[in-house]
């Protein structure tokens, strides 16, 4: 039971709403069931008893001048409920005291919180004494709790300081002031309502004629006890509110009133005031309760409810399932209700006249693809002539529940073994402090329904407490192009070489170290606003490798024109080239810097022979001492040129053209990595001596994933040290990845 509902019904009751009165008293009855048996005294006599107590309590409260204590339950919430309890109870013998007793019992437990809250406010005031008092209050409350902050196994008897009604020996001078304030409010409500003689004679409606009428039509309300003073008539209106209108005529037994705009079916209320009462320093106007046949059947048609299996909106159902459509419309007396069930292209069922309140069983066709069925209810009556009927629609999303499964998680820094017969998945090490890509393979099985495809599947990947979202769709040229959804499909239809057959996540280099727990949560929509979620945990350990130190020399092309361009790479272009190169190498790209010999001008021709001369120039400088240390630089050097040329490497230095994003995927993407790898001992796999070391010049068996371009390298891919297929995008092979791992400390 929600307190908000109780307050709402309390106000409805005080304003004459008989439905609210029934709900309110039923709620109090339920609360009564939850409390220990109490014997309610019925010998209280008349209001004079309460008036005497009221005088006593007022006197006792005056003993605490200036007493102000805020209540944890604000009076704005409490008082209307107390007043409504009295008001509802005034219509039945002993009812007012019964309902007040129920509320009093429910609230007495809360009263301890008043002390806690006020002490908390004192503690928050920054006063040391306040904190000490708060501590002592909690100590006291603690002694009144059972184990683990639960209730005591044997609750203390009579937990309420003041039972309602007060006992004969009630001495308000022994009661704490906060309790006095509450009982004063209760007494005021009890006395004020008890003084209202009109309550014993509520009006009674015997007929409303006609039962239903259009806006502007006159209806006649007959009955008794209406009084002779013209008052307002309250109609229920669409949307849940009420409209109070002035009637045309009013006598003690007959009222003529025009139906207002928006009037709908429900009970009419006659807003006959029964007075204003004061309780707890505030005022509320009471409306006389009514009885009898107050039901008005409505004006324009209203679809009060339309559900499929008890739900509204969109409902997912299996093919061949049976669905119960249920509806309730009004006015029941003159409304024609139609039901139609259709797909986008065809009508499955159409019935122009069904009962105003009813049900219909739909057997969903055995569709083999996702299909939407729209169930449309229409309601019309004489009030809607020339106007569109009232309509309500429910969509049935016909689909099988997918059997989603995470088939595996490929953890790669560009190259990884995965989904290969006889080869362990994820057998290649990944290196700490490098971006790491996780590809989550998700399959769906629906027994062939919808070709076993589930669209708009997304998910997250948690690494420790960090939650990552898919990077599908993001590229360096379209960084905002994320489309974090894939189609889950039958496992046999998942193509590893397709970037978007998997949900892809990037673990930033900062988090890629040590051993981490990973958790993939995959979310598939079921078509009705609900989702199926499957989770797959795993654990991953990164291998620590040193950052290979690389120093770059920016070479100025001073060859005579027109061959020479006079150009020199910028420092940013040099860094970009090397960062891309490290994406192929098992080492973090964190030790890249200009060489102490930062630039080199050359007039050498960039042909094979003269390129070697350029390389010799760099060797010569590299052998010289670094002015800062007095020793030759132990780092690898790379000379970077702007114009396209081949690369060359040997020993401690190499030459390579720079790489730019505009060059996209292709051989230039890997050229600097190729030359740097030579410096670390990598060889051309087509060379006999290289093959003697076990390297093969064959296409890769695994599908690389370029972590910069966020995409797989589909088709035939050769090792980046090979010259085979040099017009294609090459990538580092598992063999060279492991070789470099072995030489990088």
């Amino acid at each position, binding site marked *: 039971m*929600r*307190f*908000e509902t109780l*307050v*709402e019904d309390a*106000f409805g009751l005080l304003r004459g709403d008989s439905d609210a009165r029934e709900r309110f008293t039923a709620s109090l009855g339920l609360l009564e069931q939850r409390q220990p048996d109490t014997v309610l005294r019925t010998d209280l006599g008349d209001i004079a008893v309460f008036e005497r107590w009221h005088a006593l309590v007022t006197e006792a409260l005056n003993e605490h001048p200036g007493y102000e204590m805020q209540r*944890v*339950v*604000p009076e*704005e*919430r409490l*008082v*209307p409920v107390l*007043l409504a309890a009295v008001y509802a109870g005034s219509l039945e013998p002993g009812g007012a005291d019964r309902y007040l007793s129920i509320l009093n019992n429910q609230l007495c437990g*809360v009263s301890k*919180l008043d002390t*806690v*809250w006020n*002490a*908390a*406010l004192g*503690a*928050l005031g920054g006063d040391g004494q306040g*904190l000490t008092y*708060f*501590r002592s209050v*909690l*100590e006291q409350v*603690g*002694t009144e709790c059972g184990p683990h902050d639960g209730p005591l196994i044997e609750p203390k008897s009579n937990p309420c300081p003041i039972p309602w009604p007060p006992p004969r020996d009630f001495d308000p001078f022994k009661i704490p002031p906060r309790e006095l304030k509450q009982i004063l409010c209760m007494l005021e409500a009890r006395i004020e309502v008890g003084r209202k003689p009109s309550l014993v004679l509520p009006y009674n409606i015997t007929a409303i004629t006609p039962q239903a009428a259009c806006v502007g039509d006159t209806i006649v309300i007959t009955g008794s006890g209406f009084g*002779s*003073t013209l008052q307002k008539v309250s109609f229920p209106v669409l949307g849940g509110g009420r409209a109070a209108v002035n009637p045309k005529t009013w006598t003690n037994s007959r009222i003529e009133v025009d139906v207002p705009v928006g009037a709908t079916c429900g009970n009419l209320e006659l807003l006959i*005031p029964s*007075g*204003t*009462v*004061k*309780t707890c*320093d*505030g*005022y*509320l*106007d009471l409306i006389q309760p009514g009885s009898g046949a107050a039901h008005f059947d409505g004006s324009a048609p209203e679809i009060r409810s339309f559900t499929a299996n008890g739900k509204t909106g969109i409902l997912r159902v299996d093919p061949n399932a049976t669905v119960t459509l249920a509806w309730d419309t009004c006015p029941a007396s003159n409304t024609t209700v139609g039901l139609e069930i259709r797909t986008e292209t065809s009508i499955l069922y159409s019935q122009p006249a069904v009962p105003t309140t009813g049900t219909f069983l739909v057997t969903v066709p055995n569709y083999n693809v996702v299909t939407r069925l729209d169930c449309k209810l229409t309601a019309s009556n004489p009030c809607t002539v020339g106007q569109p009927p009232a309509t309500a629609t429910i969509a049935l999303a016909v689909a099988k529940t997918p059997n989603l499964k995470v088939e595996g998680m490929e953890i790669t820094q560009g190259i990884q073994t995965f989904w290969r017969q006889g080869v362990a998945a994820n057998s290649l090490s990944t290196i700490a402090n490098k971006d790491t890509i996780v590809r989550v393979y998700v399959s769906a099985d629906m027994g062939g329904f919808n070709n076993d495809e589930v669209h708009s599947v997304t998910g997250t990947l948690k690494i420790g407490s960090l939650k990552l979202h898919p990077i599908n769709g993001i590229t360096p040229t379209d960084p905002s192009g994320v489309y974090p959804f894939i189609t889950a499909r039958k496992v046999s239809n998942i193509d590893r070489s397709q970037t978007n057959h998997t949900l892809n996540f990037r673990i930033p280099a900062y988090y890629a170290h040590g051993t981490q727990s990973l958790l993939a949560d995959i979310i598939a929509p079921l078509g009705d606003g609900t989702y199926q979620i499957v989770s797959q945990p795993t654990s991953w350990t990164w291998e620590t490798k040193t950052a290979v130190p690389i120093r770059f020399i920016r070479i100025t092309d001073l060859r005579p024109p027109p061959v020479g361009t006079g150009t020199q790479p910028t420092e940013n272009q040099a860094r970009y080239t090397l960062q891309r190169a490290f994406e192929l190498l098992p080492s973090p790209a964190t030790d890249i810097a200009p060489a102490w010999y930062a630039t080199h001008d050359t007039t050498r021709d960039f042909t094979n022979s003269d390129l070697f001369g350029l390389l010799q120039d760099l060797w010569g400088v590299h052998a010289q001492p670094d002015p800062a240390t007095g020793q030759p630089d132990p780092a690898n050097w790379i000379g970077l040129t702007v114009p396209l040329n081949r690369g060359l490497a040997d020993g401690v230095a190499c030459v390579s053209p720079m790489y730019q994003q505009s060059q996209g995927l292709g051989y230039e993407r890997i050229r600097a990595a190729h030359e740097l790898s030579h410096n670390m001992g990598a060889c051309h796999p087509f060379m006999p001596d290289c093959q003697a070391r076990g390297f093969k010049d064959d296409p890769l068996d695994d599908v690389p994933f370029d972590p910069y371009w966020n995409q797989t390298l589909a088709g035939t891919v050769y090792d980046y040290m090979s010259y085979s297929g040099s017009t294609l995008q090459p990538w580092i092979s598992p063999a060279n990845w492991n070789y470099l791992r072995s030489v990088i400390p």
Partner: protein
Amino acid sequence: MSQRKESPGKRGALDIRGRIHSETGKGVHGLTVELLDTKFEYVERLNPILTAADGSFTFTYMQEEFPDLFGARPRVFLRVRDRWGGIIHTSDDSIAWQPGQQTINLTLDSEALLAHLRIPTTWEALTGPLIPPERWAQIDAAISLLAPAGEPKHDSFL
């Protein structure tokens, strides 16, 4: 300022009704309206009433309930008290006790209503839980000033 109007009304009944509002024209809720006879002989029987939210009030006396008053026909007048019991208005004119309807509308100035309107007059329907969340938050904040969660003995008796 008051305005008075007489009309035939119901047979055999004295019906005195009206509305009390402030200078802004807004009705004043919860004022006590007393009907008193000029000789104070029937005061006990003429129960006071409270104004409704729109400032309206209605006294209805049926002849069969008050035959002696309809016989004696005392002159009566209105007196208005605020929530604290202070008299804030007494009508200048008296009314003859006779069947019919009297309408009396009063405008009270802000000075007269100052004390009455010092605190809110009307209980409004509020939404939300029984105990507003911010009050729990205040208790939690105060508890955090003691041993914070996670520290030794934070969950034991203090």
